[in-house]
């Protein structure tokens, strides 16, 4: 279980005027600004739960992950992860926790991944048989068995991320922090990583905190979402709750016959956002107007196909974040 109470983190960073004069000035006097990365947050994550942390850049997601994993010290507040204070770096805690950072490699670049795994076997004291079983299972799931003997720096980004995942999960951690695990990966690699995380979670049931800018990651893997803005939580709840509370629009997609397409372009729909692409018209309509808008469309032009659906979770979350930024 993860319990966070009144957690705050501030960073003091120095600023410098641009150019040579700015550098010269900073030799004699420096100006500092204080950045509030986390602002009095509370969080509880239950055993086996996976939560998605979302927010724009600088919202505090990575800072929270770093505090929970013990990399950085909080300015104030209490943190307990599976009964340990992460900052104390108790080896009993570090042995059952893992952090995977999509943007920061932890494996040794100059050596093949397998050499790194062998060192991790020693560090985590993984029994021989269990180690090879894990390596085989994880590398087969991620389809990188043939890449384990190649220098890490010579692997593709996707392969590197996969071997990083294996390295982080060899010791079967009970708490896993995933900080943008699919960043920069192509669609196939993203899918493979997501599928793997899903399977791993079903098999070992760890607590997982996933940070990602890709909504597919969140939607596919998380039951609960925490949206962050400027170091605070602006939403904490299930994906269903987001849909219920914030899905105010319906998405109407219609294929219009070619001869009527120009006519369709001239149609006006109040309170709606309309887009035209090829022979498709897409309307974001408030949910209470969706039926009327569809009727008006069908009565005005010849429709070949019509589809009304809920907006995808990504657009809803985007909307929530936009509204918060405008506030």
């Amino acid at each position: 279980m993860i319990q966070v109470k009144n957690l705050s983190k501030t960073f003091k960073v120095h600023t410098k005027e641009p150019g040579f004069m700015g550098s010269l000035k900073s030799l004699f006097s420096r100006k500092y600004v204080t950045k509030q990365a986390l602002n009095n947050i509370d969080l509880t994550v239950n055993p086996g739960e996976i939560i998605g942390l979302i927010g724009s850049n600088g919202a505090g997601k990575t800072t929270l992950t770093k505090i929970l994993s013990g990399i950085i010290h909080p300015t104030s507040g209490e943190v307990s992860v599976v009964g340990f204070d992460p900052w104390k770096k108790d080896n009993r805690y570090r042995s059952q926790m893992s952090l995977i950072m999509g943007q920061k490699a932890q494996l040794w670049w100059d050596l093949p991944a397998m050499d790194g795994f062998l060192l991790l076997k020693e560090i985590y004291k993984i029994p021989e048989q269990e180690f090879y079983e894990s390596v085989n299972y994880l590398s087969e799931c991620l389809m990188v068995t043939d890449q384990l003997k190649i220098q890490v720096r010579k692997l593709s980004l996707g392969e590197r991320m996969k071997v990083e995942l294996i390295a982080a999960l060899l010791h079967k951690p009970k708490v896993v922090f995933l900080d943008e695990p699919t960043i920069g990966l192509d669609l196939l690699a993203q899918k493979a990583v997501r599928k793997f995380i899903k399977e791993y979670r079903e098999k070992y049931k760890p607590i997982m905190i996933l940070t990602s800018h890709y909504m597919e990651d969140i939607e596919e893997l998380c039951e609960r979402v925490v949206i962050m803005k400027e170091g605070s939580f602006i939403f904490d709840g299930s994906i269903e709750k987001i849909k219920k509370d914030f899905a105010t629009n319906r998405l109407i997609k219609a294929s219009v016959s070619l001869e009527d397409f120009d006519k369709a372009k001239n149609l006006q729909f109040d309170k709606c956002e309309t887009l035209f692409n090829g022979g498709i018209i897409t309307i974001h309509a408030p949910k209470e107007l969706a039926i009327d808008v569809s009727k008006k469309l069908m009565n005005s032009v010849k429709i070949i196909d019509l589809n009304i659906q809920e907006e995808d979770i990504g657009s809803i979350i985007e909307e929530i974040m936009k509204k918060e930024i405008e506030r």
Partner: protein
Amino acid sequence: MSALSTFKNIYFMELRKLITYRADFWINFLGQTVFSILIAFYLWTSIFESQGVDTINGFTLNKIFFYYLIVPIVFRLQQGETIGAISGDIYEGRLNKFLLYPLSFYLYKIATYLAHSSFFIFQLFALTIIYSVFFDTKNEVNFTFINLFLFVIVLIVSSITYFFLNSITELLAFWADNIWSLGVVTRFMTSFFGGAIIPISFFPQWALSILDYTPFPYMINFPMKVFFGEYTLSTYFQSLTILMMWMGLFAVVSNSIWTKGKYQYTGVGI
């Protein structure tokens, strides 16, 4: 036992990493050796000729060649990794792994440091053998098993001492944006006052008296004296004890900076 096994694994992994770069190893070896021999030859031949003597401050021409062949390797061996091995981890966020893994930061760093150091042992012994084959070294060095053993012990202790001294400046990277110059100054002071540039027997007496209160002569001059067999067991153990006391002092200071510095660490980015 378990820490020792982890140490051994880290040490050998680092060695494997170093061996990966074969070209760098040979260029470094040949480049440094040729460079050292040329400087020693032209500089000291002309000094001895102009003075018209056979011995200067206890050094014959043959011995000074040998000294300048060996001392750069002893110096590099003692200095293990390059400047930035720890500060780079802090600046680029590689320190994360030492904070995440159930592993002591110092255990890992000393193991990798000694791997870098021992990488030069091959060069040291290769050069000693080559030199001994082509030149008469009977008067300069008395190669015995006990000499060799005591020499290796001093090299290990002086390497760990330099590791802790260097780590003090490197760990200041928790606060400072660039510690490169500080690292260069530390390296220069150790090499100059330790006798890597000029043997310290060439220094005036008053300077030697002051240097006795610093760790520098114990870090380079002492191993060199052991290499040439210029010691008695009592002076050996006395100097080794002093060196170990410096090592302990640097370790305590380094550890207290590490403990405080971790609070400043941001893991790169906010």
